[in-house]
């Protein structure tokens, strides 16, 4: 039973082994000639400005969280819209009503966020 997975194990071993071999070769026999320019951070050819770990206003987290919440919820609209005809055939007005309830809760969440001031930038 487990023998059926043997080719997979061989493939994994080859893939990992090959990667390690290539890394080892370039590490041991590649020429090394460091210079200040070479060890600079690569920034698409631009001169690097400041460190990468900068402080970000905490507000971005809130905005990002809200975005993800609404984004994911809106995704549920697509399969519903695609299947709408067959849903109506099965459930009648329930097909529209159930999505109406869903959107209603979503709107309530939006109003809540708004009234609580999470969208005020200052």
């Amino acid at each position, binding site marked *: 039973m487990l023998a059926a997975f043997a080719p997979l194990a061989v493939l994994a071993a080859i893939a990992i082994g090959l990667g390690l071999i290539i890394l080892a070769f370039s590490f041991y026999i590649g020429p090394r000639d460091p210079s200040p320019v070479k060890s600079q951070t690569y920034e698409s050819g631009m001169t690097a400005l400041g460190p990468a770990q900068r402080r970000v206003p905490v507000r971005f987290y809130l905005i990002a969280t809200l975005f993800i919440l609404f984004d994911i919820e809106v995704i549920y609209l697509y399969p519903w819209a695609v299947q709408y005809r067959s849903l109506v055939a099965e*459930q009648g007005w329930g097909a529209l009503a159930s999505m109406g309830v869903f959107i209603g809760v979503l709107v309530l969440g939006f109003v809540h966020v708004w009234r609580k001031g999470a969208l005020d930038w200052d």
Partner: protein
Amino acid sequence: MLDLSPDWGVILTHFAPELILVIGALGLLSYDLYVRGKDGLQPWITLGVLLAAALATGWLYTMDPAEVFEGRSAGEVFRSGAFLSDSFTHFFRLMSVLTAGLVTLSGIAYMRGKTAFKGEFYAFVLFAALAMNLMAGANDLIVIALGIEFLSLVSYILTGYIREDRLSIEGGLKYFLYGSITSAAMLFGLTYLYGIAGSTSLPVIAEAVRQPENLVVTHLSTFIVPAALFLVLAGIGFKVAIAPFHQWSPDAYQGAPTPVTAFLSVGPKAAGFAVMMRLFITVFGTPELSATWLGVLGALAGLTMILGNVAALTQSDVKRMMAYSSIAQAGYMLVGIAAFGGTALMGTTPLGAVLFFILAYLFTNLGAFAVIIAVDRLTGSSSVSAFAGLSKRSPFLAIALTIFFLSLIGIPPLSGFFGKFAVFGAAVASDMFGLAVVGVLTGVVSAVYYFQIVKTMYFGDPAEGGALRPSPGVVFVVATALVMTLIIGLVPQPFIEIANQAVTALEPIAGSMVAR
């Protein structure tokens, strides 16, 4: 072929308590938007919604079973949907409403002024009750997973609710981190169950595992079923805080606002055990299948009782002590589940004993926590020293806490005695003498730490002398819990019957559902 067209009348009827909770919670959130900063009606709206949910549950309770099931047998109903509205669910619906209601009442004064987000707090209490209902009625792996996640998320938020308090944040974060890992483990286990049966529906899984030759994946099933069950047990065990999945609980209990601690000690435990019973008993409850998990469950029960009771000995914070105490109590409940195959004793079936134990534990523990909430609010501390001289500062709270502790130890004629008696009796009846002995011995150990508090209350010198005046809500909860602790202890029979009736929804399925 499954009939997909929903019967709206049936759905609205049998989902009524949950719908009331959803609408109530959302309504409360909306109401809160327009009374910002003011001392509004939020707690009273919460209590009204909970009362409505309780009445709806009572209405469902009194329905004629023949009408409810439309002439179908319990087994047929079991096969029918993702959410079951049976007597077992009704029992836990009442548990969740009681927990949320008592926590709300005892927490009104405590939460006042602690947080700027007052309406959300009570909305989360309602959402927590809703999540518990969903877990209790879950008949599908997806509903189980969503219910547990829902309750977990609400619990994390409530634990870290006081943003200004470092302990609260720390407790919430630890709870969240442990919870994420155990959730991942549980979901992994659930995918295995789906993988072997090809369905997320519990009845389909139940049939699949009873006919191993029909499994989708046959060659590994003897190994996969126990492995999957253990992973699922990790997720549920985390929610009910049994060893070795309990490490989050002392920190979360200590850091959380005390009313939330009270909720955590009862709500998730009751709901977690509901899921555990539904999944393990109805699906994996046959003698052959239960052999794969009974040993593990029994061992965890023993470990939980020992660890909870011993670790509680050295705690200097009453909330931490209650965390270990509630771990130990979860161990006692687990004994009843491990003994589920045993015969009836004193009129209880083993699973009925578990439900009866949870009922008794709910009132006793919430009563004890109401006292702790009052002391914490009035002295600003939940360390043992804050309880010094409580007998002089508030004789009512002191005597009430003593009685609750006596009930938690299991002294007759209080409710805790009959809970323990029923559970350990079931263990003895199914030849699990070891568990019963461990339970009784660790129960003796538990007397030590409970009585340390009692000793401090009656013989300790208070740091300051003034009388403590508990809020009306706390007085009401303490009085209710006292009365119920005494009534359940003195007249246990009606409550045993309620518990037995609730588990009839499980038992016929456990015995012969698939032997059709």
